[in-house]
């Protein structure tokens, strides 16, 4: 009775609100959203209706007995959070001793939470969420939750089904609509990986609630919740626990905006420790150096430039180099100057174009009216930006703006006839050009029955030889330093061609390997059409030959790619020999830019194991370059043929390196995860895909970064 009164009291209060004063923005500790044990924004066991800021990524760890949660949560939108999580269940074994020794059970899970409305003066914020939607279902729950803040107090109440609804303190209203909502198949899926949507919102329902109180002055958030997950209830695949109290209490300490420590007391008898590392990568918050000042030429110098163009080219070359911009060709005409540039420094092509144009304008004779910047990406001339010099100069004196420059600008491409081939000034390039780098690197196997983490420290050496602008030899050699792959003991039991599932053999026998050794030729035969041909050891598991044709209409939102390869499976030792398996793999992809930085890849083709199907890849790219994406592949294999996971899926993110530095630089920190290494739906690991080289060079991308032209 007390419990019901408590819950209703909370619900009642939820419909009130207040205003928070702006002085709260000045607390020394910035208390933001905090994570539940499961990783999504929430209290301890229960979620709330709060969200991280759009473009945030957090790593969450929460340890107690018996459940230890480790997860990644991303917020691609301000209204959505997605979590991928491992749970170690310490009171259960992974399997029988002969299979996994003493290893405890590990469960993978995927959660999603969506905001239904924004909090207003009168109404709370509502969110709908699903937990463990494509895993084994041990923690599967659905919930509708509301949160309302009253200054430092945040109240949460919600309805939960599945594990969150186990207390069953209310009857499920959906039963009135359909009888199927009355029962939930609590028995969990052995294979996992399927969306058991028929069970969603079915079975017992509970009302859960909690409150959080911020002591901003001390960087503390206090939490109290009523837990309806009933850990003492007997379930399939769950060992019941002693519960002394349904109330959990906890506190989070915000050491900084990005690092939160947590301590909780659960079930009235168990302590929990947690931490959360978070970052918002949607914006670059570190100041970068402004463009370098270039002194305008005086009258005498300008006269000499007109008489001898080589002075202009040399000055241009020198000044551009100071900005780490490399001239690929230049032509000074009566009223225009064309400059082809490339740079390993700038991720934004408009920043590269703007800084190049600024320097060209400072050095060019007064008669020059048009500055044509030809942007090179790799060896392709990707786009041409025709700028009005007068407007650009005005903007540099704060008498015009980037928008006004745009009005007088033409954006175009002429990839098949790059200016560097016919330019008046062509820098001498001595082929062959050799480049190399070496670094420690890592390979890993996470979440297997032999051990949660198996890995290798590997010395990786890349050696590339450019024989011409178009022809390059790529090689990657890895030398083993240390690994614990000898613990791998689960040979593949795949029912189809073992194109990926022999990963353990590749890791064990290929400790020291030739990871890549391929010859690549790229060219653009027609405007906006790009071709790549390659031959050799294309990746760690396959060698052969093939290529890609990429059509990227400069002014459009879509592009098309056709890949075809004849490949043979490499031996496990990854030297120069092959196994018997040979196949032809090919696919066609449509890339489409939607809105808000959302892009999609829709691929249809024949995969490495001979199965045919489609891959859908959806990602969101933020202005900073931070990208979050998910993908899924469904082929003509049956669920039984595919095995655990039912179909291939995964997620990835990529953080631009320059977000961590005080100067501009290219490069990203990529991370991708396939929960399972399966044979079905496996593609070649495409190196230097043409979309990765040219996908960000379209008119749409240039316009997105247009403001960078002035800095």
């Amino acid at each position: 009775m007390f419990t019901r009164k408590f819950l209703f009291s909370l619900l009642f209060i939820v419909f009130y609100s207040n205003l928070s004063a702006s002085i709260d923005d000045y607390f020394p500790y910035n208390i933001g959203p905090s994570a539940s044990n499961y990783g999504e924004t929430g209290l301890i066991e229960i979620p709330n209706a709060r969200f991280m800021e759009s473009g945030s990524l957090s790593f969450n760890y929460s340890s107690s007995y018996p459940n230890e949660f480790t997860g990644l949560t991303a917020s691609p939108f301000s209204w959505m959070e997605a979590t991928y999580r491992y749970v170690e269940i310490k009171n259960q074994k992974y399997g029988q001793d002969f299979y996994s020794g003493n290893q405890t059970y590990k469960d993978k899970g995927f959660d999603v939470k969506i905001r239904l409305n924004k909090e207003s003066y009168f109404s709370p914020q509502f969110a709908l969420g699903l937990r463990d939607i494509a895993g084994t279902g041990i923690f599967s729950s659905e919930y509708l939750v509301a949160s309302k803040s009253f200054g430092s107090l945040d109240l949460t109440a919600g309805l939960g089904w599945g594990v969150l609804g186990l207390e069953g303190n209310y009857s499920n209203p959906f039963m009135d609509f359909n009888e199927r909502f009355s029962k939930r198949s609590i028995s969990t899926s052995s294979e996992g990986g399927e969306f058991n949507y028929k069970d969603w919102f079915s079975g017992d329902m509970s009302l859960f609630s909690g409150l959080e109180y911020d002591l901003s002055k001390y960087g503390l958030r206090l939490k109290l919740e009523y837990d309806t997950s009933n850990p003492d209830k007997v379930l399939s695949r769950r060992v019941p626990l002693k519960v002394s109290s349904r109330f959990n209490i906890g506190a989070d300490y915000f050491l900084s905006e990005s690092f939160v420590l947590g301590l909780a007391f659960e079930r009235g008898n168990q302590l929990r420790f947690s931490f959360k590392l978070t970052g918002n990568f949607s914006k670059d918050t570190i100041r970068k150096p402004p463009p370098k000042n270039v002194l305008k030429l005086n009258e005498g110098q300008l006269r000499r430039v007109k008489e001898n163009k080589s002075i202009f080219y040399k000055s241009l070359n020198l000044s551009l180099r100071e900005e780490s911009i490399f001239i690929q060709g230049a032509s000074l005409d009566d009223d225009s100057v064309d400059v082809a540039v490339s740079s390993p420094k700038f991720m934004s092509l408009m920043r590269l174009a703007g800084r190049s144009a600024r320097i060209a304008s400072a050095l060019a004779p007064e008669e020059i009216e048009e500055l044509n910047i030809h942007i090179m990406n790799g060896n392709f001339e990707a786009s041409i930006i025709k700028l009005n010099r007068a407007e650009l100069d005005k903007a540099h004196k704060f008498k015009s703006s980037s928008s006004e420059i745009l009005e007088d600008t033409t954006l175009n491409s002429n990839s098949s006839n790059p200016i560097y081939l016919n330019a008046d000034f062509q820098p001498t390039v001595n082929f062959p050009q050799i480049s190399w780098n070496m670094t420690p690197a890592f390979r890993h196997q996470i979440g297997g029955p032999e051990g949660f983490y198996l890995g290798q420290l590997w010395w990786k050496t890349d050696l590339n030889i450019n024989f011409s602008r178009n022809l390059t030899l790529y090689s990657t050699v890895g030398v083993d330093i240390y690994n614990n792959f000898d613990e791998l003991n689960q040979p593949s039991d795949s029912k189809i061609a073992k194109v990926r599932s022999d990963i353990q053999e590749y890791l064990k026998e290929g400790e020291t390997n030739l990871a890549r050794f391929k010859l690549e030729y790229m060219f653009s035969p027609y405007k906006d059409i790009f071709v790549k041909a390659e031959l050799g050891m294309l990746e760690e598991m396959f060698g052969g030959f093939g290529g890609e044709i990429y059509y990227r209409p400069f002014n459009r939102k879509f592009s098309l790619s056709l890949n075809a390869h004849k490949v043979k499976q490499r031996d496990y030792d990854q030297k120069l020999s092959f196994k018997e398996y040979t196949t032809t793999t090919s696919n066609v992809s449509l890339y489409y830019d939607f809105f808000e930085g959302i892009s999609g890849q829709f691929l249809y083709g024949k995969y490495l194991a001979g199965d045919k199907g489609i891959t859908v890849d959806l990602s969101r790219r933020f202005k900073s370059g931070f990208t979050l994406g998910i993908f899924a592949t469904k082929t003509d294999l049956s669920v039984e043929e595919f095995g655990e996971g039912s179909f291939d899926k995964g997620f990835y993110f990529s953080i631009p390196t320059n977000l961590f530095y005080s100067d501009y630089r290219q490069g990203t920190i990529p991370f991708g995860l396939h929960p399972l290494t399966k044979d079905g739906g496996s593609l070649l690991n495409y190196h230097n895909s043409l979309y990765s080289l040219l996908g960000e060079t379209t008119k749409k991308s240039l316009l997105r970064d247009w403001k960078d032209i002035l800095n």
Partner: protein
Amino acid sequence: MKQIVLLIISLLALYSCSSLNNNIAPGYTEAYKNIKSLFMIKENIEITPSLIEEIPYASAMLRIGKAAPGLIILEGYQRDEQFWISADNVYISIAKGRVVATRGLPNNLIEYKSSFSLYEFQDGSFPKIFYSYYSYDLPELINLKVRSSISVREKEVVDLFNQQRTLLLIEEEISNDYLGWKETNKYWLDEEGFVWKSVQNLSPKLPPFEIIITKKPAK
């Protein structure tokens, strides 16, 4: 244990995937430099005493937090207020040794109100405790009430980059109980009450400002 060590190193190794310029372990080298820069106070070797002498304007060294110190130049006056500007367009307004406004920073002090100035501190006629009002932008906050408690310390020899002077140290403990903001400002004054060096906390959202006057304004 081996697994944990490998896991930790592997997380760091995400950096190895980035494409950077150096040949050997470029990602680690850059990451090391970056981490080092977070913890080390950066020195600016480009500013020399001779450079300061050559500049015909009054100048000061400004260091914000752990950033490299930069030179600021006196741009103009308005009554008691001096307007100083840095090369990257950060404006600092100083009145009687105290920073009273900033512009061009992620968070700015837009107004400082107090009935007491540092010049009055020396003769001991000022109140030991008084209140000031700070206003900010980004985010906007008007008249944050800050309590000040003043202590006059002893004279000490202070290195002013291009000279040494014996100056009186005055410490000002500022606090706002609601925010839990508590800092100590330090001012080094000469006999005329001119503040040659100071370390000032202007906002709960900004690191301390260290200002050393390298060339004194004419008035």
